[in-house]
């Protein structure tokens, strides 16, 4: 049911709406909820954090190179994950932010990751920064790095991890996300190995989760999936979550980034 236009109705709608399957019974809900999500609060908090001098070196992150050159935020998220020569590894957004915190600001990994996932009362610094940086790629096609040998290796590792069964329930990601038609209660489970499914999903992370009123990131999502599989939670910004995020983003490549957005 469309809102009837009042005189001079404005078309402010849909900027951050996830691209959902047209048949989804939740299509209207997702569209309206995305339009009315408090995303800008997190983007603004992230911009503040980006510009705040911190650490022993008392500098901001404004010279951080997110892949498009030092300090270039616009479009950077759409190019991640990718290989960074200075670190000699593939990095996703959060891993790269952590790298800049350590190298530019002189902060220790321990201090910078002390509270890497926030809660409903207070988002973490990493969540705020992710909202800000990702928001600056809104509307751009996602083109993670795929050419470099390490980028290919990260993809392969991610793919292997996706299918690797372990833990007390003998689960892999594919157990839930490897075939069509699976559900947890009323939520349809997307097939993450299928570009058709994964494009609209990766185009809408990081996201405000309405069920918990928290802004969450991909590193958190990987962590929480492992927790739900009853496996040890992966170390933040380590090779495992980066490989999985690479696998998912490469599967989704070409999708127009529509985030930050909302999730249930």
């Amino acid at each position, binding site marked *: 049911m469309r809102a009837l236009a*009042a005189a*001079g109705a*404005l078309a*402010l709608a849909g900027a951050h709406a996830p691209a959902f399957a047209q048949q989804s019974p939740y299509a209207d809900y997702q569209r309206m909820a995305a339009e*009315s999500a*408090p995303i*800008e*609060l997190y983007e603004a*908090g992230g911009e503040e954090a980006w510009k705040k001098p911190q650490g022993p070196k008392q500098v901001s992150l404004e010279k951080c190179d997110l892949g498009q050159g030092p300090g270039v935020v616009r479009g950077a998220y759409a190019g991640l994950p990718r290989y960074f020569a200075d670190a000699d590894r593939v990095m996703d957004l959060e891993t790269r932010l952590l790298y800049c915190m350590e190298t530019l600001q002189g902060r220790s990994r321990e201090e910078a990751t002390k509270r890497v996932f926030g809660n409903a009362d207070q988002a973490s610094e990493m969540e705020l920064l992710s909202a800000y940086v990702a928001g600056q790629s809104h509307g751009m096609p996602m083109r993670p790095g795929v050419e470099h040998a390490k980028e290919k290796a990260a993809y392969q590792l991610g793919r292997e991890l996706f299918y690797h069964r372990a833990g007390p329930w003998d689960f892999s990601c594919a157990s839930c996300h490897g075939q069509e038609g699976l559900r947890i209660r009323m939520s349809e489970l997307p097939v993450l190995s299928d570009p058709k499914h994964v494009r609209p999903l990766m185009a809408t992370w990081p996201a405000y989760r309405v069920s918990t*009123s928290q802004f969450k990131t991909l590193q958190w999502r990987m962590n929480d999936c492992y927790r739900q599989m009853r496996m040890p939670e992966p170390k933040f910004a380590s090779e495992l979550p980066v490989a999985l995020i690479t696998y998912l983003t490469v599967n989704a490549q070409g999708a127009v980034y529509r985030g930050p957005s909302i999730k249930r």
Partner: protein
Amino acid sequence: MAGPMKMRATSQGGVTEIRVLMAHPMETGQRKDASGKLVPMHFIQNVTVKLNGKTVVEGQISQAVSRNPVFSFRVKGGAKGDKVEVSWIDNQGETNKTEATVA
């Protein structure tokens, strides 16, 4: 301390649309925290929208408005450069406000 607010006011075709976000827990008083204790009621009760200093909308809201409320309002007219102010007061007497210029 009151959480941040963000607002955007845009004018098109003789109507100004105001979209305002406010960080607030909007606690119903029925939720339990991690230690099992009930979190006390804490929610915005009044929202006031002013255009160039004149009140145009007065909202009374309950704890059943979602956490981190986002509202949209519309006013007739409103030219670029006009000032919009939105303020709130909650059941514990906390207040906050934000201003924006119509774009």
